[in-house]
């Protein structure tokens, strides 16, 4: 659905993009991760036909962004990292205006606007002025706005930035629903864990270069070669440590804050078997999970090389 080939962008002497290449398949979610100023927004702007690349090619739905911007605009819903709203316009009128910019008839608009407001949980705010909405609500309204013409592709540039945890969760749920609707989504963030759950593929960019692309698991393994298991038991801790150390696919076992942490090198199937084994051995297991916080570390590991 989206192809980017050797894309570069220069602003005077500064090279914002240094020949990035990637593809996003139809119906998949591509998480675009990188620190601030890495080139995420520049790539998004080029895909949104707001900027011409210095060199390279970018296609959306088979159309070249520089040659067929009008056709691309019909296919994309773009939500920039920062966007404003109009004072003195109600939420429903706001969507109505943007729907009219796509030539959607009044009758059609009257049908889709309540559905969109429902999708983003803002039905109760339809008569509220947009400038009175909270930041989270504005982001959700912005998302609804980008969907008014039912685009196949969504370009969401840091949609969760500046949101409180509750608003982030609400936004993530809406995005999951959009993914289930078959939309092709490129979503950017500077926080890897934020996109890990949502994305089929993650691309990590730094200083205008694509550092790595793959699904979260692949990236994890590529960098650390293992994942870390976090186990808590009511008692028999020492016995459990010995049990784990005996496994060939466990590299090291540590104790930290009442948890047992194990560096795990095996496959998912072996992980299932291990849990079954521990249960059968009657270990009083309270927790058995993968350590998620390591994603932050992965991100730092990956971006450290290029940045320095």
């Amino acid at each position, binding site marked *: 659905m989206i192809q980017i080939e050797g894309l570069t962008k220069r602003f005077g002497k500064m090279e914002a993009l240094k020949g990035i290449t990637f593809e996003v398949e139809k119906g998949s979610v591509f998480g675009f991760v990188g620190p601030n100023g890495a080139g995420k927004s520049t790539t998004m702007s080029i895909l949104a036909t*707001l900027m011409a690349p210095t060199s390279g090619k970018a296609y959306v739905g088979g159309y070249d962004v520089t040659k067929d911007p009008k056709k691309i605009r*019909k296919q994309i819903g773009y939500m920039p990292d920062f*966007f404003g709203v*109009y004072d003195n*316009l109600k939420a429903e009128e706001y969507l109505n*205006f943007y729907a009219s910019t*796509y*030539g959607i008839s009044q009758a059609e608009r009257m049908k889709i606007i309540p559905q969109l407001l429902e999708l983003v949980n803002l039905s109760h705010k339809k008569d509220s002025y947009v400038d009175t909405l909270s930041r989270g609500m504005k982001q959700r309204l912005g998302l609804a*706005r980008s969907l008014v013409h039912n685009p196949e592709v969504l370009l969401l540039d840091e949609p969760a930035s500046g949101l409180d945890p509750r608003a982030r969760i609400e936004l993530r749920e809406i995005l999951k629903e959009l993914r289930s609707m078959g939309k092709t989504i490129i979503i950017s963030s500077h926080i890897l864990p934020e996109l890990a759950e949502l994305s089929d593929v993650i691309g990590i960019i730094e200083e205008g270069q694509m550092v790595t692309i793959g699904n979260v698991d692949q990236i994890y393994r590529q960098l650390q070669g293992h994942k870390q298991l976090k186990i808590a038991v009511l008692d028999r801790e020492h016995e459990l440590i010995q049990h784990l150390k005996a496994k060939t696919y466990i590299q090291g076992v540590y104790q930290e804050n009442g948890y047992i942490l194990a560096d795990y090198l095996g496959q998912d199937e072996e992980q299932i078997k291990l849990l079954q084994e521990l249960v059968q051995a009657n270990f009083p297991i309270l927790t058995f999970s993968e350590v998620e916080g390591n994603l932050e570390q992965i991100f730092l590991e990956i971006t450290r090389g290029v940045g320095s």
Partner: protein
Amino acid sequence: MNLVQRFINPMLSKEFRLRMRSKKTPWAISLYLMVLGGIIFTFIYLYNNNQAYFDPQRSREIFMMLSIFQFAMVSFVTPGLTAGTISGERERQTLNILLTTNLSPSKIIVGKWLSSLSFMTFLVIASIPLYSIVFLYGGISPSQLIKVFGFYIISMLAIGGLGILFSTLFKRTGVATVVTYAAIIGYTIGTYIIATIIQDITQISSMSKTTATYWMQILYSINPFTAILSIFDEGPVVALNYYMGGVSSRGPQLPLEPYWMFISFFSVITLISILLAIYFIKPVKKKLLRRK
């Protein structure tokens, strides 16, 4: 989609709604009429003080005053209404979103331009009762009245066009507004001073008067203040009386009357400004001039 909807510019209808919903709007209308009415009623009072009869000549002068003040107000208010339209969208961070919709750059520019000017037109129409009071005293022909309103409309379109152009070129509304005012004031004073200098030079030197006077007439014709005076058969361009239909033996004739010269020239300014604004708002521009 019905025919009416097809021709409604979404930008225009949104702007109308926002403009008329703003709390500032009724205050702006009241202030405009109070300033214009205050000035003109003061003039009427001073002119007709202790007079027990109507003097059509004085009434004509009051009408001229009203027209010139109204033009000054139009020149003052229009940049304020138009110079922030595109830069305001940019400052509000809504322009990028607009540019990714199906609205073409021309629809965005024309919608913004007409919506801003419709408010100015609204102000001018709201001042008609003031005109009717002055018109009651006589001394003014209906054709002059129509010409004055035509003059306002074309001036608004051109000043608004410049405002939109600078609003597109400059990122900050403040800068765009100042540059628009500077351009209008510079143009008005500049054309008048150059025309006056040419007039003085032709009187004291032996340079070719034919060409010089021709340019002098053109400059006076396209100057808003001398052009508005020409509607009432006043001002330097009428005094020269060179235009077609006047005494032609004293020099080259202008192709049109000063009023129509002004209308034509300002129409061209309007067209160029709007076309340039449409070009410059495009996020990805094709080069205007290709190097060979």
